[in-house]
C-alpha cells in the first residue's frame, strides 16, 4: 500500500478556489452499490485523476456530478454551495462540462451546430450561424483545439470529434470539465496532444476530472489521483510522490500481472496469408491500401494501430464480411478472397468481432441461440434445415460452464448479461470449434479485469493448441502482453512487423502515428 | 423549453389567424348555403317511420320490407338512401314495416338477404347490381318471398324476382341536353365515379350525347376516378378538385355522378359564380344542399318511386318477374326555375318527352 490519505489543500497549492466537492456520495442500483460514501474535491486549475478498473464506479460517480443520476445519499457542493443536480442542464448551468466516453455528437450535423446545440446564439429568432462559427473558432484558437466549424461531425477523425466535445463544454462556460476515458480512442501522439490541451486548460483555471485506467497518463498529467475500487475511494495520491506499481496495486487490490503468462511461440505453417489487400470502408473510401500480412499456426500476431486506420476493414475482409477490391486472402492455402462469411467460417476461421452488441450477438436471443449464431445450420445443431434444440442446449450448458459465463440460465436473454459476460459468450462460441485461425478484434474492450485475464488465457491456449491467432486491439498493453509478433498498422498498411522482443512502446507509438 | 412552446403557440396562432379571417369573409359572403332544412326531408321521413319489423311478419296481414344495401350505408345520399326512403314510404303507405341491413363485406350479401328471409319479410329489396347474383339465388330458393333487385337487370325471368332497372343513359341524355343548351363556353364537364360500374358509364355516355344533340359545337370533357372501387365513390376531395380543373378548362356545366365523389364535384362548382352543376340519381337539391348555388337539376332515376310502386304490386299480388323499368327524368329546377330562359325550358321539355318515349335515341348501345 502506498501513501495514505494526504492533505488535499496542500497538494493543490492551498490557495486555489474549491470548485467542486462531493461528500459521502452513495448510489445504489438494484442489487448493486455502485458508489459507497465517496468524497472528493476539485480545485481551480487542478487536474484530478479518477483511477479505477472497469466497474469500479468511476462512471456512476461522474454521472452524478453531471446530473445524469441522483445520489441516494451525500451532498454535492459547487464553489461551496450545496446543489441538487436534477439534469445535465443543471450541471451545465453551474459550470460543469463533460466529455462522454461515447461521444454525444450528432453525426449528421456540423461542428458548429453540435457545439451550440442547446445554447444557441441567436439573431432575432434565428440561430446566428456566423457567430456560432466564430465562437468555435475563437475557442479552438485560444486552447489550441484545431477544428473546422463547418465540417460535418461524421466526417471527422475520432481525435477531432473529441476536441469538438471539449469545445462544446467550454462554449457553455465550463469551469469544471469531466473527461470520461478520453484517451481510449486516441493514438499515443493524440493522447500526448490531449494531455497538453488539458494542461493548457488547467493553466487557464479550468478544473479537470480525468477518468482513466491508464497509469502512464495519470503520472504524466494529474495533480492528484483518487483511486476507486468496488465503488469506494480506496486511496488518494499525488503522482509525483508515488509510482505506477503502487497505483496499480491500489487500483486492482492485488499485484497486477502485467504480462500474460505464456511460453515462447512454436510457429508452424502459414495459416493466413494476405497479399496486396485493398478494401473500402462503409463510405466507399479506400481503408485498406495494399496490405500484406502472414500469420502462422501456433503464434499470436497483434495488430497495433490507432482506430480508424483500416483495422476494422481488414478484419472484416479476412472474415468474409466485406468485399475485397483487390489483392488476395488465403487461409490454410485456400483462396478465400471471394468467399462470404459463412464459407470462411466453414474453413475454420473464428472471428471475435470488434463491436459485440452490433455484430457479435443478437441481444433478444437466448444465450443458447447466441452460442450457435454463426453455426446454427451445422451439425449437430441442425439437420436437414431443422434445428436440434437438444444439441444446442447441451452445447450451451457446456460452454457456459467452460467459459464461466455468469447467467441464471442458458435460456436467459443475452441482453440481460453484463458486458464481460456477453463477451465471454462470444469468445465461448468462437473458441468452441478448434479453429485454424482465430481473428480477435478488440477482444477485451469494456470487459472487467477478471474477464480480461480469462480471455487472454483462452487466446494463448488457442495458440498453444496450434491455431494461428490474429489480435487487433487499440490497447497497446494488450498487444504487447499477448503477441508473439506485433504488426503496426497505419493508413491501411502494415508499416512494421516486429518480434515482441523488439517491440517497445515508444517505437510502436511513433509508427502508429505514421512516423518512420 | 420556452422556445418549443413558443413555436407551438406560433403555429396555432397562425392557423387561428387565418381561420378567423375566413370567418369574417364567410359572414359577408354568399348566404345561400344557410338552408339546413334540406336534410330535414329525410329526417322527417325517418322520424315518422320507426325502423324495424314491429309486427309478426309471418302473418298474412303484416307487410314487411327488408332492405339490404350494397357495401355502404343507408344514409349515403345516393342509391342506398333513395331505396331506403322508398321502402319506408311503401311501408307507411301499405301500413307495414321496413328494416335494413347495411352490408359491410360483399361476401355477406347472402347472409344479409337470408336474415330477412328468416324474419319472414314479404319483400326483400336488394340495392345495387353487385347483389344481383345473390338475389337471384335467394329468389330461386325462396319462391314464397318476393325479391326486388334495384339496378339488377334480369336476363332470365324468375317469377318472384323483379329487377328495378333504369335507363340511366336517358336521364344522362336529358341532363346533357340541358347542359348543351345552357353552356356559354361550349364546354361541359363530367366527373364520374368509375367506368367499372355500368350505370355510371351509361349516365356519362348519355350526358355527352345529349349535350352534342342540343349543341353540336360542344366539347364534353369527362374523367373517371383513377382509384379502385373501394375509393372511387368515396372521395369527395378528388371530385371537388377535379371539378375545379374542369372549370379551369372553361367548362361551365359540370355533371357530378359517382356517389360522394360526384357530390364533391357539385359542391365545388357551387363556389363558382355562373357555373351550373347537375346531380345524379336522386334530386340532389335535397341531399346536397351545399350545391344549391349551381344545382340546376339532377339526372334522376326514381328508385324510391319504383320501390313504392313495386311494393304495392307485391301487396296486391300483381307483381311479375323480369324487369321493371323505373322512371328516369330530370329533377325540378328549384331556384333555377325562374332563371332558365323559357325557350330552353320548352326545348328541354320536348327532349324529355321524346327521350322518354324512345322517339329520340340516346345513342348509347
Amino acid at each position, binding site marked *: 500500500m502506498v501513501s495514505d490519505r494526504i492533505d488535499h489543500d496542500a497538494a493543490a497549492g492551498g490557495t486555489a478556489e474549491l470548485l467542486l466537492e462531493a461528500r459521502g456520495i452513495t448510489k445504489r442500483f438494484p442489487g448493486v452499490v455502485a458508489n459507497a460514501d465517496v468524497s472528493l474535491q476539485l480545485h481551480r486549475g487542478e487536474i484530478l485523476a479518477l483511477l479505477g478498473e472497469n466497474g469500479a464506479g468511476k462512471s456512476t460517480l461522474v454521472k452524478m456530478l453531471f446530473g445524469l443520476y441522483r445520489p441516494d445519499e451525500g451532498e454535492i457542493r459547487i464553489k461551496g454551495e450545496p446543489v441538487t443536480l436534477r439534469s*445535465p442542464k443543471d450541471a451545465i*448551468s453551474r459550470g460543469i462540462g463533460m466529455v462522454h466516453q461515447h461521444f454525444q455528437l*450528432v453525426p449528421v450535423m456540423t461542428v458548429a451546430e453540435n457545439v451550440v446545440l442547446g445554447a444557441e446564439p441567436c439573431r432575432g429568432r434565428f440561430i446566428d450561424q456566423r457567430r456560432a462559427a466564430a465562437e468555435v473558432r475563437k475557442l479552438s484558437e485560444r486552447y489550441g483545439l484545431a477544428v473546422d466549424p463547418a465540417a460535418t461531425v461524421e466526417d471527422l477523425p475520432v481525435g477531432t470529434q473529441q476536441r469538438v466535445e471539449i469545445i462544446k463544454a467550454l462554449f457553455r462556460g465550463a469551469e469544471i470539465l469531466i473527461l470520461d476515458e478520453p484517451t481510449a480512442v486516441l493514438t499515443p501522439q493524440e493522447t500526448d496532444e490531449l494531455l497538453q490541451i488539458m494542461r493548457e486548460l488547467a493553466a487557464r483555471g479550468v478544473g479537470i476530472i480525468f477518468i482513466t485506467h491508464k497509469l502512464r497518463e495519470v503520472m504524466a498529467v494529474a495533480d492528484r489521483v483518487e483511486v476507486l475500487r468496488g465503488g469506494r475511494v480506496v486511496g488518494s495520491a499525488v503522482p509525483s510522490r508515488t509510482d505506477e506499481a503502487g497505483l496499480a496495486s491500489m487500483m486492482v487490490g492485488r499485484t497486477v500481472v502485467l504480462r500474460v503468462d505464456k511460453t515462447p511461440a512454436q510457429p508452424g505453417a502459414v495459416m493466413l496469408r494476405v497479399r496486396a489487400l485493398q478494401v473500402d470502408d462503409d463510405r466507399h473510401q479506400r481503408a485498406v491500401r495494399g496490405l500484406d500480412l502472414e500469420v502462422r499456426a501456433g503464434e499470436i500476431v497483434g495488430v497495433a494501430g490507432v482506430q480508424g486506420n483500416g483495422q476494422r476493414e481488414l478484419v472484416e475482409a479476412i472474415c468474409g464480411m466485406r468485399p475485397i477490391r483487390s489483392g488476395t486472402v488465403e487461409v490454410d492455402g485456400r483462396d478465400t478472397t471471394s468467399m462470404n462469411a459463412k464459407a470462411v467460417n466453414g474453413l475454420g476461421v473464428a472471428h471475435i468481432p470488434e463491436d459485440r452488441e452490433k455484430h457479435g450477438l443478437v441481444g433478444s436471443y437466448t444465450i443458447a441461440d447466441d452460442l450457435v449464431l454463426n453455426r446454427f445450420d451445422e451439425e449437430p445443431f441442425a439437420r436437414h434445415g431443422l434445428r436440434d434444440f437438444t444439441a444446442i442446449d447441451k452445447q450451451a450448458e457446456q460452454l457456459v460452464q467452460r467459459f464461466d459465463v455468469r447467467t441464471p440460465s442458458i435460456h436467459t436473454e443475452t441482453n440481460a448479461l453484463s458486458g464481460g459476460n456477453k463477451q465471454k459468450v462470444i469468445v465461448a462460441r468462437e473458441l468452441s470449434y478448434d479453429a485454424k485461425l482465430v481473428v480477435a478484434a478488440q477482444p477485451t474492450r469494456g470487459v472487467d479485469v477478471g474477464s480480461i485475464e480469462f480471455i487472454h488465457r483462452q487466446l494463448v491456449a488457442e495458440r498453444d493448441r496450434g491455431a494461428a491467432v490474429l489480435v487487433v486491439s487499440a490497447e497497446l498493453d494488450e498487444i504487447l502482453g499477448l503477441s508473439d509478433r506485433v504488426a503496426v498498422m497505419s493508413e491501411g498498411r502494415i508499416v512494421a512487423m516486429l518480434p515482441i522482443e523488439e517491440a517497445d512502446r515508444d517505437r510502436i507509438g511513433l509508427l502508429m502515428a505514421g512516423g518512420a | 423549453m420556452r422556445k418549443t412552446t413558443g413555436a407551438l403557440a406560433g403555429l396555432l396562432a397562425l392557423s387561428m389567424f387565418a381561420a378567423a379571417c375566413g370567418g369574417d369573409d364567410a359572414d359577408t359572403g354568399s348566404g345561400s348555403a344557410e338552408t339546413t332544412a*334540406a336534410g330535414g326531408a329525410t329526417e322527417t321521413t325517418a322520424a315518422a317511420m320507426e325502423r324495424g319489423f314491429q309486427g309478426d311478419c309471418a302473418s298474412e296481414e303484416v307487410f314487411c320490407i327488408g332492405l339490404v344495401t350494397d357495401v355502404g350505408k343507408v344514409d349515403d345520399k345516393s342509391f342506398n338512401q333513395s331505396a331506403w326512403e322508398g321502402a319506408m314510404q311503401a311501408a307507411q303507405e301499405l301500413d307495414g314495416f321496413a328494416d335494413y341491413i347495411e352490408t359491410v363485406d360483399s361476401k355477406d350479401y347472402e347472409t344479409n338477404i337470408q336474415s330477412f328471409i328468416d324474419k319472414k319479410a314479404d319483400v326483400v329489396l336488394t340495392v345495387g347490381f353487385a347483389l344481383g347474383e345473390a338475389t337471384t339465388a335467394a329468389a330461386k330458393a325462396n319462391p314464397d318471398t318476393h325479391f326486388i333487385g334495384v339496378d339488377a337487370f334480369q336476363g332470365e325471368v324468375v317469377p318472384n324476382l323483379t329487377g328495378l332497372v333504369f335507363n340511366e343513359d336517358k336521364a344522362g341524355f336529358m341532363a346533357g341536353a340541358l347542359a348543351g343548351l345552357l353552356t356559354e363556353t361550349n364546354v361541359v364537364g363530367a366527373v364520374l365515379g368509375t367506368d367499372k360500374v355500368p350505370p355510371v358509364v351509361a349516365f356519362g355516355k348519355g350526358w355527352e350525347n345529349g349535350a352534342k344533340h342540343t349543341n353540336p359545337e360542344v366539347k364534353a370533357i369527362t*374523367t373517371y376516378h383513377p382509384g379502385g372501387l373501394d375509393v372511387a365513390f368515396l372521395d369527395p376531395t378528388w371530385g371537388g378538385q377535379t371539378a*375545379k380543373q374542369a372549370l379551369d378548362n372553361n367548362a361551365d356545366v359540370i355533371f357530378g355522378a359517382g356517389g360522394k365523389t360526384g357530390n364533391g364535384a357539385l359542391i365545388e362548382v357551387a363556389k363558382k359564380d355562373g357555373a351550373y352543376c347537375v346531380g345524379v340519381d336522386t334530386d340532389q337539391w335535397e341531399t346536397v344542399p351545399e350545391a344549391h348555388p349551381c344545382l340546376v337539376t339532377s339526372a334522376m332515376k326514381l328508385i324510391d318511386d319504383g320501390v313504392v310502386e313495386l311494393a304495392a304490386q307485391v301487396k296486391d299480388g300483381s307483381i311479375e318477374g323480369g324487369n321493371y323499368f323505373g322512371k328516369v327524368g330530370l329533377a325540378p329546377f328549384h331556384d333555377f326555375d325562374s332563371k332558365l330562359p323559357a325557350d330552353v325550358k320548352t326545348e328541354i321539355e320536348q327532349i324529355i318527352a321524346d327521350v322518354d318515349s324512345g322517339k329520340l335515341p340516346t345513342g348509347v348501345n
Partner: protein
Amino acid sequence: MGIVNALRRLSPDSRNTLVAVLTGLVAAYIAYGIWDFKATAVLGFMVRYSTPLALAAMCGILCERSGVVNIGIEGQMLVGAFVAFFGATWAGIVFGVVAGVVVGALLGAFLAVCAVSWRINQIIAGTVINILAAGVTSFFYRQGRTMKGSMPTWEIPLLKDIPLLGKVFFQNQPLTYLTFAIVIVLQVMLFRTPWGLRTRAVGEHPSAADTVGVNVSLYRYGNVAAGGALAGLAGALLSVEATGTFERGMTSGRGFLALAIMIMGRWRPSLAWAAALFFGLLNGLVNQLNFERVIDVPPQFIGMLPDVLTIVVLATFAGRVRAPAASGQPYTKE
C-alpha cells in the same frame, strides 16, 4: 456579377433547389405558352391535390424529425375532418377548423403518450389511432347537416395577376395559403432556429441532446402534438375547405400517401412539398389526358401511373434515403 457570387455562396442543397424551381417554372411557362388555360387547369389541380398531402407530410416530418414514427396520420386526419366539419355545422367554420386542429393535437398527444411515456411500439399506436378513427367517425356520423358559412377564396392583390402563377398559387382558399406558410415556416424553423436544431438532434441522437440539457421527452411531446395538430388541420382542409362536407373514410389513404411523400422528400419540408406537388401534377395530367381523350388507355392504368413512377423514381435515383437515426426508437436515459 453580384448574382453569380451570391449563387456561389449557396449550399449545394439550395443551389439544386433553385435549379429545380427555375426548371419547373420554365417548363410551366412553356406549357402555358402552348396550352394556355389547360396548363393553368393542370397546375391548379396540382396545387389543390398536393396541399392536404403536403400538410399531412409536414405532420410526418415534425414527428419523425423528433424521433417518433407516426403511421396514424390517416386517422388523425379523418378525425380532424370529422370534428372540423361538425364543429363548422355547429358554430361556424372558424370554430370547426380550430376544433379539428385541437382534436388532431390531442390525438398527437395520445401518440406521444404511447411512444414516449408508455413506450408502446409506435407503429401499433399509430394503427390503433387509424382503426379507432375509422370506427368512431363512421359510427357517430349523422347526415343532413351543413356548415355555417363556407371557406372563401382569397385573391392576393397584385400577385394574382401574374400570368399562370397568379391563378395557380394566389387564388386559393385560406387553409391552402396557411399550408404554404406552414411549409415555409417549418423549413426555416427546422434548419435555422434553435427549436429546429434541437428537434433534429432529438431525432438523430437523443442522448446528445439530453446531455446538453435539451428535454427529449418534452420536445417529442410538443412536436408530436403539433404534428397531430397539422394532421387535424389537413383533415379540416379536406372537409371544411376542399369539399365543404364530411363523408366516411374521406381521407381515402391520403395519410399513407403523405408518409411516402415525407420519405420522398427526405424529411425536409420544402422537398416534401415538391414531392406532393409532383404527385399533384401527375394526377392533374391524368385528368387532363382523360378530358382530352388523347389516349385510349383504361383509367386504371392512368390511375396507377403516379405509383409506378414513384417506385421507378425511388429505385433509380433516390437510393438509400436516410431517416432520422432515432426515428421509432424510444429514448431511455442511461
